């Protein structure tokens, strides 16, 4: 049975229609990640679920109970706010133990839970500090800590790791995954980080402009995006989407009928940069980004199409150099004029 159901949810801020009818069913214990461009309504949706904003239209059902109008404090959710919202007058320790103290938990248990959370989050040394004496990342960690000391029915995380360094982020991500496994609490997680989305999610929900674009497992979205938007949104660097007319005839010839006048999407790893003249697709290098383990090569074909190619080695190329491209159309995505995916010939 569905644990959390969002039914036709709408939200307006005055004239601004922010959530335009969201239907979603989340199973008990599921880890759902919300992604979407900045301003698409992720936080708002979270806040609606949390009961911090009034739902203008639609219903919210938790565990079979209509909670559309139940006050936040009775919903048994824990939330990490995008803006932290720490209690400025409480120390780190008090911030984290607040919910437990409210719930009249046993002091020993509180101490133990807070201690554990502080350890996970590397906050041990800061327990007696006030929020204003912390760095940005430390504050964010306190916000996380405040949520994870509790054992709620549902966890809501709003970009919880955005201000952490890579190492700590990886570490905390693992801890969140572990926590999820241990507690089995249903979790809704907003992030802009692809790695987080791909590694944590049971299902990813892609939002755009207050509407759900696609829901599916991470690899489903990666491999079978429903439309151009999702295709480009999932995966970094983003998929190269090029109007068909700018692509080499070779590619064009493989396009399914439905994609006529549309475009083709090729992930950067489907594009191989080769010495000039080795293939008929000529291009010039525009920019090289050496990321250490891999290198991104941005090229522009003579037809004006721009491609980013991913390469697993260092490159000696220089901007302006002439190169040839191999485009691996086996993994191409085809889009019609409206941006909808059109199945490739092979599939058809």
């Amino acid at each position, binding site marked *: 049975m569905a644990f959390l159901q969002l039914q036709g949810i709408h939200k307006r801020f005055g004239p601004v229609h922010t959530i335009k009818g969201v239907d979603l069913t989340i199973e008990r214990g599921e880890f759902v990640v919300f992604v979407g461009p900045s301003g698409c309504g992720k936080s708002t949706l979270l806040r609606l679920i949390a009961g911090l904003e009034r739902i203008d239209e639609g219903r919210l059902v938790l565990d079979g109970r209509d909670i559309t109008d139940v*006050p*936040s*404090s009775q919903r*048994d959710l824990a939330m990490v706010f995008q803006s932290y919202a*720490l*209690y*400025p007058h409480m120390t780190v320790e008090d911030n984290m133990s*607040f919910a437990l103290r409210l719930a009249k938990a046993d002091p020993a248990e509180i101490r133990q839970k807070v201690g554990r959370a502080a350890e996970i989050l590397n906050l041990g040394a800061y327990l007696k500090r006030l929020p204003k004496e*912390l760095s940005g990342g430390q504050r964010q960690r306190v916000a996380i800590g405040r949520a994870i000391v509790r054992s709620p029915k549902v966890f809501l995380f709003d970009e919880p790791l955005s201000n952490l360094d890579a190492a700590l982020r990886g570490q905390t991500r693992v801890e969140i995954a572990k926590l999820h496994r241990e507690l089995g609490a249903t979790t809704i997680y907003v992030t802009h980080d692809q790695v987080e989305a791909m590694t944590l999610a049971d299902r990813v929900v892609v939002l755009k402009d207050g509407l759900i674009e696609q829901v599916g497992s991470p690899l489903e979205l990666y491999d079978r995006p429903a439309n151009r938007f999702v295709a480009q949104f999932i995966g970094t660097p983003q998929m190269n989407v090029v109007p068909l007319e700018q692509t080499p005839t070779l590619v064009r010839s493989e396009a399914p009928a439905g994609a006529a006048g549309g475009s083709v999407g090729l992930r950067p790893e489907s594009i191989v940069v080769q010495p000039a003249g080795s293939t008929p697709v000529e291009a010039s290098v525009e920019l090289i980004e050496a990321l250490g383990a891999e290198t991104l090569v941005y090229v522009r074909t003579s037809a004006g199409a721009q491609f980013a190619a991913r390469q697993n080695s260092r490159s000696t190329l220089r901007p302006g150099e002439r190169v040839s491209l191999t485009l691996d159309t086996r993994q191409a995505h085809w889009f019609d004029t409206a941006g909808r995916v059109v199945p490739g010939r092979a599939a058809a």
Partner: protein
Amino acid sequence: MSTRPVPFDWLQALRTVAAWLVSLLYVFPLIFLFVTAFKTELQAIEVPTLWFFTPTLEAFHEVQERSDYLLFAKNSIITSVGSTLLGLLLAAPAAYAMAFFPTQRTKDVLMWMLSTKFMPAVGALVPVYVMAQKTHLLDSTLGLTIVFALSNLPIMVWMLYSHFKEIPHEILEAARMDGAGLWGEFRHVLVPLGMGGLASTGLLCLVLSWNEAFWSLNLSAANAGTLAALIASYSSPEGLFWAKLSAASLMAIAPIVVFGWFSQKQLVQGLTFGAVK
């Protein structure tokens, strides 16, 4: 540790001097009052003003002998503390609701509340006097407490509203998510964060009640009079009264000033830094 010496801050020095100068000048009349209280009546009217003299407690003795200062002080404390508490009790929830759950009508309600104070007290004397008499609240501290609380209520709601508005919503929301009910939110977040506002509102109400002379005089007789009523027996009797008036005034305002000193800390809390981004 060779920390760089903090350079002499001229601005700071200037500010210090200016602030002290201005404040001393500003309270000069009070200083004058203070000094006068320790003079004899004859010294009090000396021109030019005497600044060096042997202080005497004569005036204070006189005041204490003449009137039961303690009774008036007790009444003042009961009525002002009582009305402040009662007022806060009524005003704080209302202000909280208005600040954090505003509706289209909130502003109108606020204005309306204020408008209940538009009627000059003098104009309402007879109705209120009759009301108090009918409810047997004439000359009782309870009656005065209620009247003070009600006449200060609109102001308290306004002030609290304005202070609560300064608190970021998110912090309250976080508490709500942490399972804090209305009371928890109020007790653990609003009160500590709004302390400055609550304190200054409480202080204001306290002062207004303490100084309220009109109702205190008109609704009390022998039992419920407050220090403001006591003062009315020292202003312009026949004969010289400067020292006595000063002494009585000093005694009347001393408790509240001292209280003000103690509430200093609460008044100056600014706590919201670093809470949200």
